């Protein structure tokens, strides 16, 4: 007995310690023990009401396990006992105080796990998101939509002088970069053995600097993530963490001290300032998610796992491999050859659930990196390039669908593509839904609208789906179908979404959005008055601002008559240079257009503003050319003087005649019209081979061949046409023998002089030397008329044509 007691004592002690760890609400960074005994099946009283039953199914079942909340908050454990297994009705009573069914993400339960309180995943935010989904499922569809956002006034903060990151990486390269290269490059570099984003220790200092900016707080260096990770989170210190952190802070200070303060121009008319996260969170739109069985929102922003936060067990958590990185404002960027893949055991839930319903939908917010990639898989549930359950892919401007069914082969062939001419795939953020039902088979929706493409195989059943495949994003499991681009959300539904549900989810949008309230009370004298923007981090490099609205948080306030003109957005003490979409604004805010609940919209235009320090640190404000009685005159910066023109190298003073000029010149010199049929035919044949511009340097031998051909054609037409011939060569009888006509210089004059007069011109010094040309012609005629006394009857004409062609096809015509 005593031996037994002795053996038990350490166990009791351990249990007491374990409970102590749960108590007092103290946060702990240690993940819970996961090998505790499973909670026995529920045998307590039945749920008393439908709401308690909803609580039981959607939340309690997920919490009661001993490796979740049931390990402590059970019937005998720590209060509140919302995970007790003895009576679900009592658990419900405790749980009610911990949830916000109207706004599930504001629940105490979510806040606790998001804050790191015994999160059962490696990322606290993933626990928070999963908890949110469970609570939302409990609350039902009613709680997710139609609620009123309660705008919360941000902290009252004036625009302060601030530091802005320098454009180049010079300062970074001499301060922080050497340190992180030494101690962090083993992971945080793109060429590391196991690369871990962000790559602030990359060998490429520009890339490293770009990645480090969001991890440095210029205005309060001790809040820089680079130091906090070492000091407070003991993340891979190189020895004593305090010393490592101090060294890092020293380098960050050296960097920050090298950056001058940006002073706010005192002449500006400015609002109060705030950061993005100081805005009121805009609830996600009313998404239809009743049948979601897997959901990735890519919120974590760090590490190499994208968590499935659908709340449907088991979670298909995706592991990054290759070039995959996080995108600011929730998202995942897949580079060349990268992928994010789940295990086949967790992916099995997809096959199980989808085979049960016989239908499914894949929903994704995607931004393809380009529209030239082909055989590029965006979402795939497959086992290699030749075996799959389903794949959504991209082929240039087309989306590609391959669902394995009773109507297809094991690879989902025949594949269905969207029409090429529709160019459905664009290199911008798109909402894409592939739905499948047994009647219609695959259908695709892009940005809420059906593409109308018909499944080539038609609807079938999905009972042959292979549950050993794995879900993969951005590639095939084999890594041989790489896609590049950004994914901002992916969901799998166990039902075919209807067109209305697709539209609803498209309209709900994606990503975190905030209502930013810029206080203008001191400018307008309207109590609690604000210019409100709907803002979000648009991607890793920018914010989106949209729907500016004038609003007062005082329901009794009225704007009266308030002019508003030339609004600009400022960041960190200075007006933004690019993206000022509200400069042309010139509106009157007045009582008739103003409603206390919605304010007065100031236009529907949105704009994109470059990110500087990151959403936690970028401090925004507004400036006005006019608001109420306050005015500021904006003067454009003076124009830079035009650059001094550069002299060109000496260029040729002469040039070539162009194709049509050559023909027209030949026509002028031979009197044969350009419309003469043989000439015209030959011209059409050779015109594209003739010079097209005047540059002598561009002259090609092929062009000379074309010119010669055309010249011979013109000369042929001239000599063969008796009217033209006799007018051109008056008194010359071409029926005579060649030796008679070309035997003497005097005889040759009759033929050559008209040619030279018309072609060379008379007394033009810049033309080829007449004597030299004549010498060439004499020589040519001499050779051609030497037939040994057996010249053909038409030899005289032939010699005339040849002589004509020799001059006409020469530089006499070509040069000008």
């Amino acid at each position: 007995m005593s031996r037994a007691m002795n053996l038990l004592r350490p166990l009791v002690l351990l249990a007491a310690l374990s409970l102590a760890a749960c108590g007092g609400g103290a946060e702990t960074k240690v993940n819970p023990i996961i090998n505790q005994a499973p909670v026995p099946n529920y045998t307590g009283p039945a749920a008393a009401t439908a709401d308690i039953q909803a609580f039981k199914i959607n939340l309690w079942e997920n919490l009661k396990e001993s490796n979740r909340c049931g390990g402590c908050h059970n019937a005998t454990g720590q209060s509140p006992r919302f995970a007790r297994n003895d009576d679900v009705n009592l658990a419900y009573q405790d749980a009610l105080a911990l949830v916000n069914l109207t706004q599930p993400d504001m629940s105490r339960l979510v806040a606790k796990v998001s804050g790191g309180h015994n999160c059962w995943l490696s990322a606290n935010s993933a626990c928070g998101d999963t908890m949110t989904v469970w609570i939302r499922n409990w609350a039902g569809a009613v709680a997710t939509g139609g609620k009123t956002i309660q705008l919360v006034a941000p902290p009252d903060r004036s625009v302060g002088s601030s530091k802005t990151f320098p454009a180049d990486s010079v300062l970074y390269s001499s301060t922080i970069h050497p340190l992180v290269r030494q101690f962090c490059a083993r992971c945080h570099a793109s060429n590391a053995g196991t690369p871990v984003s962000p790559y602030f220790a990359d060998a490429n200092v520009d890339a490293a600097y770009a990645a480090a900016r969001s991890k440095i707080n210029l205005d309060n260096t001790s809040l820089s993530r680079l130091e906090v990770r070492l000091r407070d989170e003991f993340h891979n210190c190189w020895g004593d963490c305090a010393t490592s952190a101090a060294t890092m802070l020293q380098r960050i200070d050296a960097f920050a001290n090298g950056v001058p303060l940006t002073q706010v121009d005192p002449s500006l008319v400015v609002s109060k300032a705030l950061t993005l996260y100081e805005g009121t969170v805009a609830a996600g739109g009313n998404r239809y998610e009743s049948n979601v069985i897997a959901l990735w929102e890519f919120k974590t922003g760090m590490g190499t796992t994208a968590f499935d936060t659908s709340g449907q067990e088991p979670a298909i958590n995706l592991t990054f491999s290759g070039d995959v990185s996080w995108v600011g404002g929730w998202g995942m960027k897949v580079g060349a050859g990268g992928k994010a893949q789940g295990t086949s055991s967790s992916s099995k839930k997809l096959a199980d659930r989808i085979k049960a319903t016989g239908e499914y939908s894949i929903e994704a917010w995607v931004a393809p990196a380009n529209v030239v990639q082909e055989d590029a898989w965006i979402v795939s549930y497959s086992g290699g390039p030749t075996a799959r359950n389903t794949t959504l892919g991209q082929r240039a401007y087309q989306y590609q669908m391959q669902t394995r069914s009773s109507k297809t082969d094991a690879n989902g062939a025949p594949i269905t593509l969207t029409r090429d001419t529709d160019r459905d795939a664009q290199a911008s953020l798109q909402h894409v839904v592939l739905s499948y039902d047994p009647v219609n088979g695959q259908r695709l929706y892009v940005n809420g609208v059906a593409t109308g493409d018909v499944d080539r195989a038609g609807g079938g059943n999905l009972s042959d789906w292979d549950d050993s495949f794995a879900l993969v994003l951005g590639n095939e499991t084999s890594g041989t179908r790489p896609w590049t681009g950004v994914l901002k959300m992916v969901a799998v539904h166990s039902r075919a979404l209807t067109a209305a549900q697709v539209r609803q989810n498209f309209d709900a949008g994606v990503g975190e959005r905030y209502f930013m309230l810029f206080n203008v009370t001191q400018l307008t004298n309207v109590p609690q008055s604000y210019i409100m923007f709907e803002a979000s981090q648009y991607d890793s490099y920018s914010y989106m601002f949209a729907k500016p609205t004038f609003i007062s948080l005082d329901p009794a306030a009225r704007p009266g008559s308030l002019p508003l003109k030339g609004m600009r957005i400022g960041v960190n003490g200075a007006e933004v240079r690019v993206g000022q979409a509200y400069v042309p604004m010139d509106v009157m805010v007045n009582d008739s257009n103003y409603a206390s609940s919605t304010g007065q919209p100031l236009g529907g235009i949105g704009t994109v503003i470059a990110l500087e320090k990151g959403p936690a640190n970028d401090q925004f404000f507004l400036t006005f050319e006019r608001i109420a009685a306050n005015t500021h005159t904006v003067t454009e910066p003076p124009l830079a003087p035009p650059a001094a023109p550069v002299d060109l190298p000496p260029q040729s003073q002469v040039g070539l005649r162009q194709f049509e000029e050559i023909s027209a010149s030949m026509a002028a010199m031979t009197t044969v019209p350009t419309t003469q049929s043989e000439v015209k035919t030959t011209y059409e044949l050779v015109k594209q081979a003739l010079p097209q511009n005047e540059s002598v340097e561009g002259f090609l031998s092929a062009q000379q061949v074309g010119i010669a051909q055309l010249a011979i054609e013109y000369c042929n037409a001239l000599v063969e046409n008796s009217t033209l011939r006799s007018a051109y060569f008056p008194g010359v009888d071409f029926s005579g023998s060649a030796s008679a006509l070309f035997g003497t210089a005097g005889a040759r004059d009759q033929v050559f002089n008209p040619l030279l007069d018309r072609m060379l011109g008379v007394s033009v010094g810049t033309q080829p030397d007449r004597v030299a040309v004549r010498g060439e012609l004499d020589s040519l005629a001499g050779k051609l008329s030497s037939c040994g006394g057996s010249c053909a009857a038409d030899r005289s004409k032939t010699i005339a044509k040849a002589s004509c062609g020799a001059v006409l096809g020469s530089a006499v015509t070509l040069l000008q």
Partner: protein
Amino acid sequence: MSTEQGGINQVAKMSSSIGKLTCAALALGLLAIGVAQAGSREQAKRMHDRIAGVPPTAAVLDQMAAEIAAGRPLAAANIAMQSSAFYNVTLKNFVAPWTNREQSVFVPLNDYTATVIGMVRDDEPFDTVLSADILYTAPGASGVAAYSPANNDHFDQLEQTGADLKTVLVKQTQSGLNGIPAAATAGVMTSRAAAEAFFIAGTNRAMFRFTLMNHLCRDMEQMLDTSRPPDRIRQDVSRSPGGDSRIFLNNCIGCHSGMDPLAQSFAYYQYDETLARLVYTAGQMQPKYFNNSDNFKPGYVTPDDHWDNYWRKGPNQVVGWDIQLPGTGNGAKTMGQELARSDAFAACQVEKVFKTVCFRAPADATDRARVQVIKNDFKAGGYKIKQVFAETAAYCMGD
């Protein structure tokens, strides 16, 4: 020796002779230019060659040489411009590349080209080329299909029959011939050829870009200014191409912020491929303005054809916009005026002529100063292109 072999030898001999002549003449020609001072006959020859594209007859050469010798080179140039080849060859090939996307010179004669030729011949003020209700056809030409707004047969056949464009072209109005309201006509921009090339499919931005290239001698890159407000950039322009908004903020925005509010003037124009003609839908937006509207939902949704010139401020002031004009308006006609009344438009016409006549771009301070003088004369003298040809030819006729 067979007959065939004899023929081959003959051609070979001829080719050889032609080759020798060409080389000799090229050498002689270059030598002559390089060394000798050109006299009035040489200057006249070159001037005629450059203007008309063909050598002068002996009589014309004598006349021109006499004018030059008498210190009247402009008069000599005017004689050269009486050659039909100036219209049928030089001007036609001068304009042809402006009328198609490939900028090819090998395109059939069309209404755009014919209209420019007619305007030059008649000394029509060229600053109306992008706004006037004008169209040149050849109603009296024999053996040629009648003008139709739905095909190019009329102009194609004019070219095929070698019609003398100097004489056959007659000034008409677009509104009279093709039923487009006079207020909706915008010179060559509303010609059938331009519509077929630049209003076809797409988003109508091509008309703006090519007009800018052809008549202001600037492509979009040269207009890049990222500091203008982007509030008029349409929804179809992705603000994060491939997921990277830096591309938009550093590049796309620089052209679209100025171009989109100007190209809005084309909101009611379309080239209907079925009808094969320009279509104008007064007050009715063309659907192409709403293409890919989900690319950026809070982008600008075009309501009408109201245009604004944002480039009147910022670095593109160097274009030299006419301060007499308001810089805003409705429709292509007023937008065409905005472009054509700019200093860059006048400078561009001179530069194009300079290149055609002198075979080179203005190369040094002397050239640039002359171009400036010719441009000022062009503007002050009522925008007559012939005057530009004459002054430029006089400058480049050789010393």
